[in-house]
């Protein structure tokens, strides 16, 4: 299966990245099926919450407050986590985070590591880095195993393998686990994964996790999951390394009463996910006795400056926005060329890249607003999309090359024509004659040459009417006299 590389630096522009999916009916069917199931479940469970809007308002306020006082809460988290026996490291960028993690693994003399699903580790491309350094990485989330063994890329942040159907999973497992007679029943496939991982959980002494939330009040870390692979990794190993974006902080333990209520409903359409674990530093006799947290900036602190962009960091990674997005539903996740797809990816990725890459993502939206409506922490994604579009345009305006850009030239021309009434009327006359050559009897233009083809490739254009309103009005006046 071909797809875009999920590194925004090398990924093709969105319209190009979307093509392989649009041409693959099986892939589109898999994505649409998964989305329909989650959406139906989410809709039912959100409808039964009479206080849903109040929860959203509270969730938004808690996250906004945490971000506005991020330095304060990060220092509090560090102090309390350290007091509880944890070690806190800070990483300015992806490279530093990778190196810190590798150094910790070398101190532990770890040649193998088990991992709980973490999008942050995918963001910093941790797995390939560790493999190159000679550390064998075992993903333990079922979807992540499917991707790792099938050498696939994640296409969703909650159900990363939703683009792969059961027979494809069977093929991957049969090949990589040596199980020729494996059936494509999801029960059998899940059982195969359980067996494959059990020994790894019991024998590999080092684990890596992400964090759903960091609790400043206690120095604790929360991981939200379904399968129990997270609990295995949080309980059995000797050493735990958690990598978390600096924005993941919540001020108080009690803030979870809002977050846990909205997260599972938004993410998987459940009243509550099967397992949520919280631990604080090192607890003697229970779980890993060495615990490290790597706090990752990687462009986040820059995003705090202005209120419009800052709200991007309120995100709790529930993926409700991509499930609701009509664009994501058609293209799936790989088209976005980033581990963060969908509407949140379209605003997060370009900002993480300082708009040097992923500049087409803010345009990967119809601005319908469905993402804003479902967002449990009220991120106004369309507002951020528009702001980023403006920034992309501003950047382009400063380039000398713009003089050769057809769009730029076209707009200059329009500017010239619209500036004087006589120029505009003249343009209308010439336009009518010119376009008349392409207008069919039904009054529509189905195909234009050159630049005009960009429009007519995907949609028809209404031909210009024989008479403009001004002409009709003038003729009417004359007739009256």
């Amino acid at each position, binding site marked *: 299966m071909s797809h875009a590389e999920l590194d925004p630096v090398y990924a093709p522009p969105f319209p190009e990245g979307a093509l392989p999916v649009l041409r693959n009916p099986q892939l589109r069917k898999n994505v649409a*099926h*998964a989305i329909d199931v989650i959406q139906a479940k989410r809709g039912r469970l959100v409808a039964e919450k*009479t*206080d849903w809007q*109040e929860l959203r308002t*509270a969730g938004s*306020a*808690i996250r906004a407050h945490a971000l506005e*006082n991020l*330095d*304060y809460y*990060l*220092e509090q988290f560090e102090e309390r986590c350290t007091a*509880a026996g944890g070690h806190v*490291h800070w*990483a*300015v960028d992806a490279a*530093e985070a990778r190196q*810190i993690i590798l150094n910790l693994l070398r101190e532990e003399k770890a040649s193998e590591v088990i991992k709980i699903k973490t999008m942050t580790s995918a963001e910093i491309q941790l797995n390939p880095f560790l493999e190159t350094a000679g550390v064998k990485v075992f993903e*333990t989330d*079922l979807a992540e195993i*499917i991707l790792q063994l099938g050498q696939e890329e994640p296409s969703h942040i909650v*159900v990363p393998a*939703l683009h792969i*159907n059961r027979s494809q*999973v069977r093929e991957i497992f049969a090949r990589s686990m040596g199980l020729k007679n494996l059936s494509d029943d*999801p*029960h059998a496939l*899940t059982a195969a994964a*359980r067996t494959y*991982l059990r020994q790894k959980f*019991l024998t590999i002494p080092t684990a890596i996790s992400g964090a759903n939330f960091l609790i400043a009040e*206690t120095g604790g870390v929360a991981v939200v999951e*379904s*399968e*129990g*692979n997270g609990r295995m990794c949080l*309980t059995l190993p000797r050493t735990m390394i958690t990598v978390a974006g*600096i924005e993941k902080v919540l001020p108080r*333990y009690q803030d979870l*009463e*809002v977050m*846990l209520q909205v997260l599972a409903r938004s993410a*998987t359409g*459940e*009243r*509550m996910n*099967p*397992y*949520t*674990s*919280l*631990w604080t530093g090192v*607890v003697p*006799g*229970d*779980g890993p006795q060495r615990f490290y947290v790597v706090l990752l900036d990687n462009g986040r*602190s*820059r995003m*705090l400056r202005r209120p419009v962009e800052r709200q991007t960091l309120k995100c709790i990674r529930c993926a409700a926005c991509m499930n609701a997005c009509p664009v994501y539903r058609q293209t799936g996740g790989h088209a976005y060329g980033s581990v963060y797809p969908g509407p949140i990816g379209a605003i997060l990725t370009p900002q993480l890249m300082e708009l040097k890459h992923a500049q087409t993502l803010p345009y990967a939206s119809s601005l319908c607003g469905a993402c804003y409506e479902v967002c449990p922490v009220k991120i106004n994604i369309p507002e951020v999309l528009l702001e980023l579009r403006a920034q992309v345009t501003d950047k382009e305006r400063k380039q000398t090359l713009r003089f050769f850009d057809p769009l730029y030239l076209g707009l200059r021309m329009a500017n010239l024509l619209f500036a004087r009434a006589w120029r505009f009327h003249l343009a209308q006359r010439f336009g009518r004659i010119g376009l008349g050559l392409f207008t069919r009897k039904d009054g529509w233009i189905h195909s234009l040459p050159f630049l005009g083809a960009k429009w007519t490739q995907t949609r028809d254009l209404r031909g210009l009417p024989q008479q403009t309103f001004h002409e009709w009005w003038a003729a009417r006046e004359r007739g009256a006299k």
Partner: protein
Amino acid sequence: MSAAPTSRQRILAGIRSATAHLHPAGSAQETPVLPRDYVRRGSLSRDACLERMIERLREYDAEVVECSPGEIPAAIAAQLAQSGRKRFVAPEGLPAAWLADGVEWKIDHGLSTEEIEEAEGVVTAAFCGVAESGTITLHHSAAEGRRVLSLLPDWHLCVLRASQVVEALPEYFDRCAAPPALVTFISGPSATADIEMTRIKGVHGPRFLHVILVRDAS
């Protein structure tokens, strides 16, 4: 590590310069008044709340039986017998009367992972139950056991008292005198929907969750 303080300072300085204009007074505000107009207390009667808890647990395919406080040992014995399992582990602080005869018990005075892995089931107490979502919270006290204890065995029997059951999640947080160092929220047996969104019970955590709801005075 010598590079760490530098990165720490750089990140914090970056955050401060980005957010300085939000704090003209210069210091962060720890306890602002944030809107919390969501449901903080349930509205069901006591009985309806317990019924809701049972209904939600059963929706997760958990088995639920009820008993009076005096019947706990008998109820546990019946559940163990029905399970057909023989080898069980128990937390250090589980009441001795709960250790039913006729099966093999290992008490966790520091059991090895291998010993826990060999067990076919575990019996624990709980900290709280949240009816709205059918959630059981463990704070891993002496009677609730270490985290690994309620994780490796395939069969988990949890004894929950009616007085521990609240209706809405915020009521659980009200019951926490101080935030716990360790907590596990359990909502049904382990599950996945990663393959075509088909919910499959039992991946790595216990495949079977049984709950004894004790009707104590509440």
